[in-house]
């Protein structure tokens, strides 16, 4: 039989999400020393510096600052992890990998989905690591609080995975995290992850409500603060929409040019 016949009668590959791709992506992230420092090491250090000293001080509602700070820093760890994972597209573009992938059946949507899933995996690792450190340092919470706070921090990190993708498609830099790292620290501070909104003063307190880390932080801490506001959900959804739209736009611009 002619080889040509076999070649011509082939069915197109689906080019969807696949396990090997996802697994190699996750392995790559876990091997990246910079990612590990940003997502696991730094939030842990912050917790030891800021959390331990105030661990047993109490909030008006009876919960401890230790819990408050642990949850806040867990949100920070998850958002850094997800942003870092998403921003890796910048490195892949610089190395010509995105172009190479266009010579395979892989659908652009599947690539983005794998990036998002890998980002969520890394942020899950960050959440578990931070909680483990907190628990070992003596922070206690009931199961429901651990779970709710953990889930919010984890799923909320999707907002930042989108931010990472957005910036990753926008910038050609190999070291996109060197810019994003400090930017995330500022967003975390403005969003009340490094200090409570209440102590930030009026002006910054108002600004805080419109920053992307604010909603996730407030929601993650709601089991211990006992507060809830729909505006927090709106904050999360709007920022997710903004970053996804930005990422989609930057992606289209990128594939047109290459």
């Amino acid at each position, binding site marked *: 039989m002619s080889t040509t016949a076999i070649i011509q009668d*082939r069915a197109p590959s689906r*080019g969807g999400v696949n396990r090997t791709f996802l697994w*190699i992506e996750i392995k790559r992230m876990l091997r990246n020393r910079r990612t590990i420092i940003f997502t696991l090491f730094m939030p842990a250090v912050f917790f030891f510096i800021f959390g331990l000293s105030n661990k047993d001080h109490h909030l008006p509602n009876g919960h401890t600052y230790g819990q408050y700070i642990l949850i806040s820093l867990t949100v920070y760890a998850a958002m850094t992890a997800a942003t870092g994972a998403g921003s890796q597209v910048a490195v892949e573009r610089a190395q010509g990998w995105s172009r190479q992938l266009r010579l395979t059946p892989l659908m652009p949507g599947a690539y983005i989905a794998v990036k998002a899933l890998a980002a969520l995996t890394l942020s899950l690792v960050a959440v578990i690591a931070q909680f483990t450190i907190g628990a070992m340092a003596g922070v206690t919470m009931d199961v429901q609080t651990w779970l709710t706070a953990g889930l919010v921090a984890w799923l909320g990190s999707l907002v930042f995975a989108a931010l990472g993708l957005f910036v990753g498609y926008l910038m050609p830099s190999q070291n996109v995290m060197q810019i994003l790292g400090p930017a995330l620290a500022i967003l975390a501070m403005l969003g009340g992850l490094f200090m409570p909104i209440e102590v930030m003063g009026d002006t910054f307190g108002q600004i805080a409500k419109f920053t992307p880390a604010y909603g996730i932080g407030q929601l993650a801490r709601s089991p211990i603060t006992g507060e809830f506001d729909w505006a927090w959900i709106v904050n999360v959804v709007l920022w997710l929409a903004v970053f996804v739209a930005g990422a989609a736009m930057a992606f289209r611009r990128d594939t047109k040019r290459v």
Partner: protein
Amino acid sequence: MTTMSVPAVHAAGLHKSFGKVHAVRGLDLTVRPGEVVAFLGPNGAGKTTTIDMILGLSAPDQGSVSIFGHSPRGAIARGQVAAVMQTGGLLRDISVRETVQLTAAMFDSARPVDEVLARAGILEIADRQVEKCSGGQQQRLRFAMALVSDPGLLILDEPTTGMDVAGRRDFWSAIRADALRGRTVIFATHYLEEADAYADRIVLVRQGRIVADGTAAQIKNLAAGRTVKASLPPSDRALLGGMPPAESVEYDAGRLTVRTGDSDAVVRFLLNTTGAHDIEVAANNLEEAFVALTGDEALTDTTTNTFEGDLV
């Protein structure tokens, strides 16, 4: 079998501009299954631009491309075409084997990873990190990635750029062994030597157009003619229409320059029919002739030197 009549590549009327640079200007190319075609031309001739359009990496301003009867994207989805690009396209932080595994994972059916590693001659370095591989090894990795889908058409863009002599030879022997299985291969190169040694057919491109298309022997004949120079009264220029076919005819300040494969016929014509005098006949330097066929402003001394020795 009817499938044989579907060309591996059919490109018609391709045009592509980048701003004011008209990189490809009306290029038509049909490649039959099983051919090994060299796309030969100097840097800046439009080779990479054409390859990008064939692969669907960029859209032509005008014209169309089909690969085995499909759109470039459709052919890629079917694993019918794969390419080895000049640079880039590799993740540095994974191993050679992981790179091929990852590529294979994108296709619904793919060749076994170790088989393509072996065919590309990099099975023994499968566990090496990509960033620790030499340029030649990385190029063979790109070749392995291209073999994953067992494509009917393999496109290589200046595949041996930056390789040393031994690396080039090893790389080409891997490609050649593979082409013997009946794979259609198109490779861009600016080394005449490579085109001569490895292609059944050479397509010469210059300034975004095809200037010659034939077997290596035909192209060599084309390049191996002589140059006839003569003084010719301007009034006799009209007579040149009756001159035997020549590759190129130039007339400048009373001096006629004819490049031809049959200098005897040209000289006989000039003496018998026109008032030509002071006739000189010189054998073309092969290198010169090749440069004449493909050269353009972009051609620098370094490029010219590349051809030294390759032609003789």
